[in-house]
């Protein structure tokens, strides 16, 4: 009888498919995973600590660096919480612009996910197609606020820049293009037998598990819970618009893929509806020069592409928050990983980890 033993494999922090600097300490038996211990914190920049010494406006660019794939929703999370605490009214056009950018950012973020996920599974081409379409969105953002990733676009009480001339037209063109383009993605990916084999029945968890781990976003909806903060704890002006909340059936990674593709469609639908009603108007509410937020405590969550992105602010009435805490969806979603990976193959590790869709900037705060 051969003597066999478990092997300790250190995956990351520098590894092509841990999506950044996640480190997984894995005990493997052959290629079967026995135990996983995720080690996070390699990208911890102490955003929450830094925020305590920054004014509310100064915090906004720091949020860009959390979930750098969808910085617009991050901007909004902190701006929204502050407005809530101050009881500020935001002009309609500003809210519409916020919604357009947030939804476009969701599309961009999901495109990155689809692309990198397929890359994790070993298919190269979808990655480039996705990035090409995402590029269009980034260019639109670039035109709007002068940055491709770290937008720093929203302000407490409104947005920083109005849409340049013809911008909304371009957005509309993109929406129409993208709605057609999605068929191409389905042609390329959805029917691919290897893709189906790799993803079907992988990474399944129950609804109860998902709730206990406080998963949010697609990771929760895939278990059949129709929970979307845009509808259920409505913020901004989302209540004015019609959109569906796609949910999954089996809860495997394939479901997550279809769900995110549907979410792209829904986001495009929202953008289309917003474009139909957006009017000229002011883009900043009546906001004092120095933001002094009244004493109090507030927690608000917004639906980021990865789930519930929350912002918990404790204010002492000064121009800087006493405490600012982000509920970072990737951090919550990643927790379930060790449970999902037990007894799986190393190839499945990549498929499951990719399915969760984490951004390490957000996990580590």
């Amino acid at each position: 009888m051969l003597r066999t033993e478990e092997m300790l494999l250190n995956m990351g922090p520098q590894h092509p498919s841990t999506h950044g600097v996640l480190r997984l300490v894995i005990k493997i038996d052959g290629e079967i995973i026995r135990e996983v211990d995720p080690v996070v914190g390699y990208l911890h920049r102490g955003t929450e600590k830094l925020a305590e010494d920054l004014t509310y406006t100064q915090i906004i660019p720091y949020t860009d660096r959390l979930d750098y794939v969808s910085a617009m929703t991050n901007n909004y999370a902190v701006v929204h919480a502050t407005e809530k605490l101050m009881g500020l009214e935001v002009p309609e056009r500003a809210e519409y612009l916020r919604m357009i950018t947030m939804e476009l950012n969701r599309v961009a973020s999901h495109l990155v996910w689809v692309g990198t996920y397929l890359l994790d599974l070993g298919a190269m081409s979808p990655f480039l197609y996705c990035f090409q379409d995402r590029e269009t969105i980034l260019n639109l953002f670039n035109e709007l606020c002068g940055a491709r990733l770290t937008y720093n676009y929203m302000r407490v009480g409104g947005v920083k820049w109005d849409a340049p001339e013809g911008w909304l037209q371009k957005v509309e063109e993109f929406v129409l293009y993208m709605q057609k383009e999605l068929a191409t993605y389905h042609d390329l990916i959805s029917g691919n037998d290897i893709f189906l084999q790799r993803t079907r029945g992988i990474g399944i968890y129950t609804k109860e598990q998902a709730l206990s781990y406080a998963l949010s976003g697609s990771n929760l909806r895939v278990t059949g819970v129709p929970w979307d903060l845009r509808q259920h704890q409505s913020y901004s002006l989302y209540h004015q618009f019609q959109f569906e909340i796609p949910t999954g059936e089996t809860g495997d990674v394939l479901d997550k893929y279809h769900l995110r593709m549907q979410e792209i469609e829904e986001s495009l639908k929202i953008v289309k509806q917003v474009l139909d009603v957006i009017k000229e108007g002011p883009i900043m509410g009546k906001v004092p020069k120095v933001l002094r937020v009244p004493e109090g405590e507030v927690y608000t969550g917004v639906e980021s592409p990865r789930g519930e992105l929350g912002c918990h602010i404790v204010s002492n009435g000064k121009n800087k928050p006493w405490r600012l805490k982000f509920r970072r969806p990737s951090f919550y979603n990643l927790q379930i990983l060790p449970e999902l990976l037990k007894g799986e193959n190393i190839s499945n590790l990549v498929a499951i980890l990719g399915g969760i869709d984490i951004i390490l900037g957000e996990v580590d705060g």
Partner: protein
Amino acid sequence: MSDQEKELTQETKATNIMGEEAVKNEEASEEQGVQTLSNTTSQQMNAEAVKLANEEQGIKSSPNTPPKQESRENAVTKPQAASVPPKKPAATPRPAAKKPAEEKPLEPSRKQPWLDKFVVKLKELEGSEHLEDAFINRANNDLPTLVVKSEWWRTLALHLRNHPDCQFHYVQNFSSVDYETHLEVVVHLFSFPHKERLGVLVKVDRAEAKVDSVADIWDAANWNEREAYDLMGIIFEGHPDLRRIMLTDQWIGHPLRKDYVPYDEGV
């Protein structure tokens, strides 16, 4: 905070809250808090008094002062506390959360009846004397909020998670705050069956920051408790794996504490 502001807010308080009775009750409850929480409130007030004095003398004690706990709005009625006579230093600052509130008296929050009922039920629970306060956080979409002492947190958590009337299965947010006088674990829960939100503020002693872990009640609390331990220095007793999560294992201190001083030997 200037004296003028204080007066203003004091006035606001007198006019806007639901009548004399509510104010009395609230103050009474705070009074009770002083008694049961080994003088936390009075300590805090003392600390503030010192700070104010320092500021008058031009000494910079701290650039930032913690938000005052008393400012929490609209304390719920607490029957057993009503007998205690209200006595309150007149100069206690009580800012209102919203400016428009100054003009017209606030309606009772739409969540107030729910919270009242909820609190009555909680009172039946063992150890419910540790429930310090229950109020509606108006600024935060009328969020019902409980303030409890750390001893009771685990019992309450089990109740909130498992009781058919609560079923708060979902942790929306798990945060922690340093108020300089004490620490607070802030948990925002959501109940899918009842579609209710609830905030729980767990007061934790600052010098000996210990609180029971709830990682086995909500899986989501696991890493969050590790994070709170790492950055805020709260020890969660009974946590399966309480290690630092964001910082290195050799890190000295807990950065989110307000008195944290970086220990940079190499720099």
